[in-house]
């Protein structure tokens, strides 16, 4: 399909608005339920918007369509971001987000495919989702299916050795139907101490992840994970296959979009209080909170 620059800008603008709404639902869900991983759910929001609202060939009305593209959230702790994207895409009611992590919910703390059928895999123990994605890609190719498999990893997660087992095997089998996106937000739960206790060092230096994925035989590139046009360009690049799996290192900011969370390692599991919630809604361009938004 030929797209003009104007069309591309319009599409990017549409997705930026969706990413904004994902962030609003992430903050609202964590504030109201009192639980959830905030920082990583905010850093991945633009990537999820681009995937679920632009790139993935999916049918929300037929979640088990065999030829659908698959998505695996290997960084399963950022489940609130995924649930928000799925809700906005029509897989579940947005109101259901407020059942997150509560008794009987389909929205388990970490994604559970046995509870929520639109999830392509259960994850939560780090370093594993990419192995499942390798199996899906390998199996889909054997079955002659056209679908692609996307997997979103954290940069901290790339410390798990099994990630590199998967990276080796994917390249060995030339799985160009497999796309790994690394949410490179440069902070993990605690990480390494920098100049002060508050200042934490990034797990990898600049360019390190790009070099590693490239060395493992992947077609790797590094982009700004908050620039929607750049994200769409990178995803367009996935369509031309060359026998190599694709890695997109997306440079992001942990807690992106909310001032008290941005770039702070403590945002990993931070629950916004009332003031922070109201501030976040303003910063995210949302209407002032109504009475129905009172905390539980």
């Amino acid at each position, binding site marked *: 399909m030929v797209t003009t620059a104007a069309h591309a800008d319009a599409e990017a603008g549409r997705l930026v608005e969706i990413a904004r709404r994902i962030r609003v639902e992430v903050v609202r869900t964590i504030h109201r339920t009192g639980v959830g991983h905030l920082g990583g759910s905010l850093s991945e929001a633009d990537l999820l918007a681009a995937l679920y609202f632009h790139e993935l060939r999916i049918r929300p009305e037929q979640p088990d369509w065999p030829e659908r593209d698959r998505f695996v959230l290997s960084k399963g702790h950022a489940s609130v971001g995924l649930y928000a994207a799925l809700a906005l895409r029509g897989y579940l009611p947005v109101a259901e987000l407020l059942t997150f992590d509560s008794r009987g919910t389909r929205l388990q703390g970490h994604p*559970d495919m046995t509870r929520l059928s639109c999830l392509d*895999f*259960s994850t939560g*123990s780090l370093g594993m989702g990419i*192995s499942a994605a390798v*199996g899906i890609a390998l199996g889909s190719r054997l079955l002659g299916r056209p679908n692609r498999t996307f997997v979103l990893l954290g940069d901290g997660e790339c410390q798990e050795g099994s990630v590199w087992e998967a990276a080796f095997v994917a390249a060995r089998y030339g799985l160009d139907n497999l796309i790994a996106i690394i949410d490179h937000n440069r902070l993990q739960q605690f990480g390494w101490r920098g100049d002060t206790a508050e200042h934490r060092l990034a797990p990898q230096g600049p360019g390190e992840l790009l070099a590693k994925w490239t060395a493992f035989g992947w077609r790797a590139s590094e982009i700004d994970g908050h620039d929607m046009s750049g994200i769409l360009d990178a995803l367009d690049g996935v369509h031309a296959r060359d026998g190599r799996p694709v890695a997109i290192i997306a440079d992001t900011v942990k807690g992106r979009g909310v001032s008290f969370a941005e770039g702070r390692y403590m945002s990993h599991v931070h629950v916004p209080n009332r003031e922070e919630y109201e501030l976040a809604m303003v910063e995210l361009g949302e209407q002032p909170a109504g009475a129905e938004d009172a905390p539980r």
Partner: protein
Amino acid sequence: MTLPMGRAMREVFGETVAELAGRDPRIVMLDGDLGTSTRGQIFEQAHPERYFQMGIAEQNMLGAAAGMASVGLIPFISTFVAFAVVRPLDQIRVLIAQPHLNVKITAGYSGLFTGRAGKTHIVVDDMSIMRAMPNMVTVAPADDTETAQVLRWAAGHDGPVYVRLVRDPTQHLFDADHVFLPSTGVVVRDGSDVTLISTGAQTPRVVDAADLLAARGIRAQVLHLATIKPIDVDAIVRAAERTGLVITVEEHTVIGGLGGAVAETLGEHRPTRLHRLGLQDVFAESASNDDLLDIYGLSAARVADQVTEVLRSAPGPRASAGTQA
């Protein structure tokens, strides 16, 4: 009189899964670079396009098997117990067992016979681990005949299954007309003095032990439980009711596996005097197969002697068999 030697379970594994794959295009095999040992190579020869060499990277292999199952394939695993169960255990837990995916963890080199590899390769607690895992069916076939039947059953069962396979030839117990039924114990010798409960390739040795005991005037009943979970409660209770004395025998630690499962069953349903033979909370070492069976008290002669000793001793409270106090 001893039971004759049969074919090695690993040969039966390679042949049977290759044969099953000839009829079912969904069956694939994932190998952790041990196909020459597990005889997965027989599958590779027959179906190279469905044989996936996953390298020496077992955590990824089990995870990838889960991914393949999620798109409708039926993966069989080719590696040793040590690398099929213990090393990738978290992948089994999170990616296979909890989502109830259709992966067959067919693990070779179980028990003591690992080609004299010693403590790293002799896994003494795999049945304890796998039977404690929710959703995991745990099976240890007795011989070549039952191995083929268990593999056929596993291929048709929708869900994760752990199958314990042996490297070297073991004794032949069952005729071709034997039918494996999951969770169903089989009384392979009747007797009224004592019940010997066993599993896997230990069962033929226990049958031989029963013959040795018969020569001493002891009538031992032998109950074979191939399926450790879900376990056949009725068969265990019936056996306990018949003899009033149960001795479990396993090529495995006595903690948490067959002995543990039988103890739980009897404790809940019919408290009965119980002894557990097997590895007494120890790791194993390198030695010949015969020496290993002797060291850990699992040869027919050693089992017969221990049973004789139990019968000779007075019933009553005893020191724990699970600890060397």
